[in-house]
């Protein structure tokens, strides 16, 4: 790999290291501080399971971050991750409550503002809602698990010493689950911004399975988290365990379980699939703050005990962090991107040309967007999203959603289906019908991404999305991911080694 690419990835690695140093303490802090679990055992279990969670279940929550803003150039991704890391570092240093999830979201919005790409307000709203839901849900689960545990202990009358042995085993198991959930949910914070500009490519391991580029990226992030756990988390674990959470080992186990469940709920594609397949509403897959989940669970237990020991100031700190962290990260990212672009002459985002063609107008009409005013722009090609948005604003009044539809439809992608590039695709991931449809379009060019999607859908139903219902959510997401993969590989400005 190019050394330059590694330099750009270093900010994500730094963010991963700090996540490992800080958030591992949420999982094993009390267990280690109370000497129920040895630090080396905790660090080993945490490192291994964070990596497993990141590699095998990290995609779900990352996808939502991608929907918020697709940071499409490596220097831009570097700066977004660095801004988030600097914000986390500075706020931690100042003793203010901070969350990596909230910092990275602020940084992505900062990148959107700098690059001119519109922010998906729906995705932002969904993410912000989960920040509020995360500690509430953790509190509810903490209270529930507390009640169940207390009832079981009353019924079973386990000897104190045997309970101690069970608690030790329980803390390790819950810690492993918590680490897996942490890796799955929070890897998006660490490496999510690099997904669009991912420098790794898919390779096959002895023909047994494919190790995708994103999985390699996530593994790198997970290794950084693991190094953070081994090198720095001991001190944080001792602080958290001894100072902030005066809980018994069983109380600590309840907190870890509640925290892990919350992170798992907000990261598990399997659970989402299960809910969706039964027609039940799904839980949004969003990176959430593990520290806030811990605070929520402690509050839940505290309320069950009567609430007299609760420190309400800590809750106020959590709520203030929802606003201050993303705003600071957003500002830091914006300013740093300015310097990176203008002082260090780095391309922090990849822009395209935009054109309102008759085909684009026709598509927009099909999508229900009013095109009367847009016809005046027909035939005009504009370079850059900022200029195009300015032109749109001068021509017509579009809401945020319609504006995004127009930008997306008018963006020129120039996709060329060269036979050699089709054959170089990950054929194991695409179904035979999907591959046949692609081959049938071999040699054709498409001016827009959606044009390729429509042509493929016309050729085969294997490329068609289904009506937008809960039950079809996962199927449609799978089709969209494959289409994104095609755009990255067959588009003109392919990032080095980009992959799904």
């Amino acid at each position, binding site marked *: 790999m190019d050394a330059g690419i590694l330099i750009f990835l270093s900010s994500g690695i730094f963010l991963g290291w700090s996540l490992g140093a800080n958030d591992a303490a949420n999982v094993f802090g009390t267990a280690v501080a*109370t*000497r*129920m679990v040895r630090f080396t055992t905790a660090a080993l279990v945490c490192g291994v399971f964070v990596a497993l969670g990141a590699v095998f279940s990290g995609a779900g929550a990352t996808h939502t971050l991608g929907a918020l803003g697709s940071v499409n150039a490596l220097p831009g991704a570097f700066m977004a991750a660095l801004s988030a890391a600097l914000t986390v570092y500075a706020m931690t240093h100042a003793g203010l409550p901070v969350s990596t999830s909230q910092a990275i979201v602020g940084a992505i919005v900062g990148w959107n503002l700098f690059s001119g790409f519109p922010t998906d307000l729906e995705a932002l709203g969904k993410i912000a809602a989960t920040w509020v839901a995360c500690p509430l849900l953790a509190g509810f689960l903490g209270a529930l698990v*507390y009640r169940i*545990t*207390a009832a079981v*202990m*009353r019924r079973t*009358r*386990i*000897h*104190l*010493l*045997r309970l*101690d*042995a069970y608690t*030790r085993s329980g803390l390790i198991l819950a810690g492993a689950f918590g680490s897996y959930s942490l890796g799955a949910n929070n890897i998006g914070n660490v490496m999510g911004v690099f997904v669009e500009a991912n420098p790794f490519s898919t390779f096959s391991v002895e023909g047994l399975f494919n190790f995708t580029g994103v999985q390699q990226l996530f593994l790198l992030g997970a290794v950084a988290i693991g190094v953070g756990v081994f090198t720095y988390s001991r001190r944080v674990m001792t602080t958290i365990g001894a100072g902030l959470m005066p809980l*018994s*080992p*069983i*109380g600590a186990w*309840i907190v870890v379980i509640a925290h892990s469940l919350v992170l798992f709920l907000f990261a598990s594609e399997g659970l989402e699939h299960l809910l969706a397949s039964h027609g039940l509403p799904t839980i949004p897959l969003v990176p959430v703050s593990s520290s806030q989940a811990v605070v929520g669970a402690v509050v839940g237990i505290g309320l069950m005990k009567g609430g007299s020991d609760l420190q309400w100031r800590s809750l106020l700190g959590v709520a203030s962090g929802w606003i201050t962290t993303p705003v600071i990260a957003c500002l830091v990212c914006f300013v740093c991107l300015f310097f990176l672009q203008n002082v260090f002459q780095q391309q922090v985002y990849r822009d395209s040309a935009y054109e309102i063609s008759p085909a684009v107008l026709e598509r927009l009409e099909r999508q229900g967007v009013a095109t009367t005013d847009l016809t005046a722009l027909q035939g005009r090609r504009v370079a850059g999203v900022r200029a195009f948005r300015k032109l749109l604003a001068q021509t017509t009044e579009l809401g945020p959603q319609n504006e995004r539809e127009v930008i997306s439809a008018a963006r020129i992608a120039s996709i060329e289906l060269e036979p050699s590039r089709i054959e170089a695709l990950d054929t194991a991931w695409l179904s035979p019908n999907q591959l046949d449809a692609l081959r049938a379009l071999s040699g054709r060019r498409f001016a827009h991404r959606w044009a390729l999607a429509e042509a493929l859908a016309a050729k085969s139903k294997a490329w068609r999305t289904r009506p937008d219902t809960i039950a079809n959510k996962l199927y449609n997401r799978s089709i969209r991911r494959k289409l994104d993969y095609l755009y990255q590989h067959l588009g003109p400005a392919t990032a080095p080694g980009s992959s799904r």
Partner: protein
Amino acid sequence: MRLFNRTKQLESWIDELLNTVSEAGLVFCEAIKLYLGDGISERYDQRLQQVMQQESRGDELCRDIEQAIYRETLIPDSRQDVLQLLEALDDIINKFQEVLWYFSIETPDIPTELLGDYQELTEQSTEAVERLVLASRAFFRDPGAVNDHLHKVRFYESEADETVTRLRKRIFSTDLPLPNKIHLRFFAERIVWISDLAEDVAEQLVIYSIKRLV
């Protein structure tokens, strides 16, 4: 698996210590009864020997449990409480032995009309210890039930206090010479100290059990 085996052994040691305290109470009660009936006899000496062995075994168990708990870093949050409780229970066996030695060495001459009061006082004190042992067992397995036993410890302790007050009055209303009266009071106070000690441990146990609840 090693941890679970070790835990099993420790559980049996703790149970054995609690049994020892309980049995020492029964033997103590029996020994006092023998003394009140026949004075120092061969059977009394046998009971004293029995309590001495129990005291020695109690010390041994306490030491082993303490070492194992520290060596294996077990129950870190309640380690101090458990060790203090076990040491306090072991102290009660020491007290049983101490009182029996006093009887054996000083052989107090107890008037017949006071024998019933001494007997009653001994039974109340040993009953308080017995309830304390039950509360201690509950502490290890069912901390919510500790209070059910502790209020009985308090009951027997206050009964013993009433008895010893009555006994003191009766001792000092006899025609015995003052040194004899003081000697008899000394023995009554030694017996009631056992129930006082049981109550002190019970008060600590309340705190320990609150800390043990999740």
